[in-house]
């Protein structure tokens, strides 16, 4: 019997540094490690002694791709501790800036990072040589998301306008209205993207996942909701620590998350669409149905379609919020300091992002816990790889390696975030 190794030392088209080592012996996987070697940065440690108001800006620096997600989870956790409720137009503006982040992040992943795998190109620049229109329109879509974040947040990466209680300053109705045409054009591109991604070649691969996402009675989840799953989980954000545990393994600087007593789970666009299909905008839902993309979808490769459905939804939701916008009197809600513990969980582009802070009566942080989406997906990624490789051992080494990379990229892993993550080694001995 032959043995072999699959080794990917530096995984490309992901955010951050990771690797995969697989040892195959006698036609079976002897060892599989999805390694995250992004150096640790110790956010939870140096947050201690910082002020509650600094948490949104400091934690944004965990990830340059989804800073809004960090700012939102941090704000909600602090507001939970301080008993603050952000409502009305301020709440709507938070959803709006989150729409912008989902658009730029999903457009980046769908077209620049994931689509090349399906089309057999090394990168989007190679796609652009043969299909310049696809890449140009993708960049136009991404730019619409970035314009939204820049207008509301001051800049696309590490925006400066989000604070505990609301914003530093709020836009006028006219300023927001200037984005309407860009977002309408973006929505058209997103609808096309759903139809286009649905025609891509998908490996015949399904697993029975526990999908976890937020669910809100009135809306598709961005900022608020209960944590639910397709296996009966239904809890509030402050109960997170009772149901989810993190484990530190030797091969990763990212902690692995499990649901207590049940194991690995799946967060992100596919989980959200599966659990919240009825809350999508009518156009997003109709476009999904028109390409026969309906829940439950258990093929992780089809996450790319889920991301495009969410692109349609985000453009729609942004347009709705802008149309109904009235400038609020105050950019932020006033509040009093108190010693307390607060919990926040919001939907980052890659899935649920949990923050917990304990603060003293001066607003100083005593203790912080942050659980990013990618560390929650690590278990599912490793399980997918085991099953995918076992079923495809007949593939030539270079093709198997590429498809392993694609399997990982299904999750849009953000390794910079999860390190508190990729390289691929396939070893056939």
């Amino acid at each position, binding site marked *: 019997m032959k043995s072999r190794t699959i080794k990917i030392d530096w995984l490309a088209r992901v955010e951050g540094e990771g690797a995969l080592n697989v040892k195959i012996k006698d036609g079976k996987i002897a060892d599989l490690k999805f390694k995250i070697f992004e150096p640790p940065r110790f956010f939870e440690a140096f947050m201690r002694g910082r002020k509650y108001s600094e948490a949104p800006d400091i934690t944004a*620096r965990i990830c340059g791709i989804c800073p809004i997600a960090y700012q939102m989870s941090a704000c909600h956790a602090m507001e939970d501790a301080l008993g603050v409720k952000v409502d009305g137009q301020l709440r709507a503006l938070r959803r709006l800036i989150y729409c912008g982040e989902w658009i730029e992040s999903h457009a980046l992943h769908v077209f620049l990072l994931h689509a090349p795998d399906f089309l057999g190109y090394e990168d989007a620049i190679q796609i652009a040589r043969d299909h310049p229109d696809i890449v140009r329109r993708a960049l*136009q879509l991404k730019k619409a998301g*970035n314009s939204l974040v820049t207008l509301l947040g*001051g800049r696309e990466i590490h925006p400066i306008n989000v604070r505990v209680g609301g914003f530093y300053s709020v836009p006028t109705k006219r300023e927001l209205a200037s984005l309407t045409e860009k977002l309408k054009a973006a929505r058209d591109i997103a609808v096309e993207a759903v139809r286009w991604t649905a025609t891509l070649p998908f490996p015949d691969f399904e697993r029975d996942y526990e999908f976890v996402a937020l669910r809100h009675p009135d809306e598709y989840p961005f900022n608020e909701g209960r944590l639910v799953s397709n296996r009966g989980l239904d809890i509030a954000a402050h109960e997170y620590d009772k149901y989810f545990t993190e484990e530190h393994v030797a091969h990763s600087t990212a902690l692995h998350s499990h649901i207590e007593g049940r194991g690995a789970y799946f967060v992100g666009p596919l989980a959200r669409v599966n659990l919240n299909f009825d809350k999508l905008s009518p156009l997003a839902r109709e476009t999904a149905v028109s390409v026969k993309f309906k829940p439950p979808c258990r093929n992780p490769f089809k996450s790319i379609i889920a991301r495009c459905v969410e692109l349609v939804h985000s453009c729609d939701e942004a347009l709705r919020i802008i149309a109904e916008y009235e400038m609020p009197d105050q950019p932020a809600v006033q509040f009093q300091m108190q010693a307390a513990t607060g919990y926040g969980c919001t939907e980052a582009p890659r899935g649920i992002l949990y923050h917990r802070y304990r603060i003293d009566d001066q607003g100083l942080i005593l203790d912080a816990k942050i659980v990013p989406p990618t560390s929650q997906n690590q278990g599912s990624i490793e399980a997918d790889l085991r099953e995918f490789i076992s079923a495809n051992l007949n593939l030539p080494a270079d093709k198997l390696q590429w498809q392993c990379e694609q399997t990982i990229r299904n999750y849009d892993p953000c390794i*910079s975030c999860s390190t508190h993550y990729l390289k691929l080694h396939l070893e056939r001995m």
Partner: protein
Amino acid sequence: MARNKKPKLAVWKFASCDGCQLSLLDCEDELLTLAGAVDIAYFLEATRATVKGPYDLSLVEGSITTPHDAERIQQIRRTSKLLVTIGACATAGGIQSLRNFKDVREFTAIVYAQPKYIETLNKSTPISDHVLVDFELQGCPVNKYQLMEVVNAILHERKPNTPRHSVCTECKRRGIVCVMVAEGTPCLGPITQMGCGVGGEYSGAICPAYDRGCYGCFGPKETPNTRSLSRWWTEHGMSEQELVRKFRGFNAFAEAFRKESEAHEK
């Protein structure tokens, strides 16, 4: 640089958030032009295709925090004709340099259940502490128009036009009312380098335009008078503890900011 061949560009990552290299992908209007002008030889966030060195221009993001990375930057320097650091992590150690003021073993124990699995250095240090750096671009994150200017200038063998004056000058140019004078909001603008708001639709200094004080994400300007700013803030009732936090942000380990924060830590 050879004139008959496209120059080879490489992008490297150390401890960081990925945001500065993402700035390249955020140049939606210029990305395909850039890809036409240079050979993107190594840029893992964007492509799995890699070309061996030597490289004409290496852009380096992130700070050095592990023994392995301290060796890796040496190899990168050896294969790079020109090496430019991008962002606060690579030029000053980044937010993760807050460990430099504390005991890193204690930090590891706070975050990780099995500290023995973690390999890390005591300090997060800028790239220039390890190798010769040809040009440093400040900012957390870098400004994408400044980044394009640096790449463009270097490809054309001229000095990049990235001024080192203060954020204050930008506010005056844009006609933004001073948040410190008018509202008493503490602002690091007088000692922070301009650049955050260069180019784009909303040109100018960003934070004061959004009614908040600058928090120093672009790092020290040339010859910053940190002592004078501290004195003003003290007169306005800021505590020593708060002063330390103000200087100890995304550029905490940049010399001017580090010395000022240490002067108030007693």
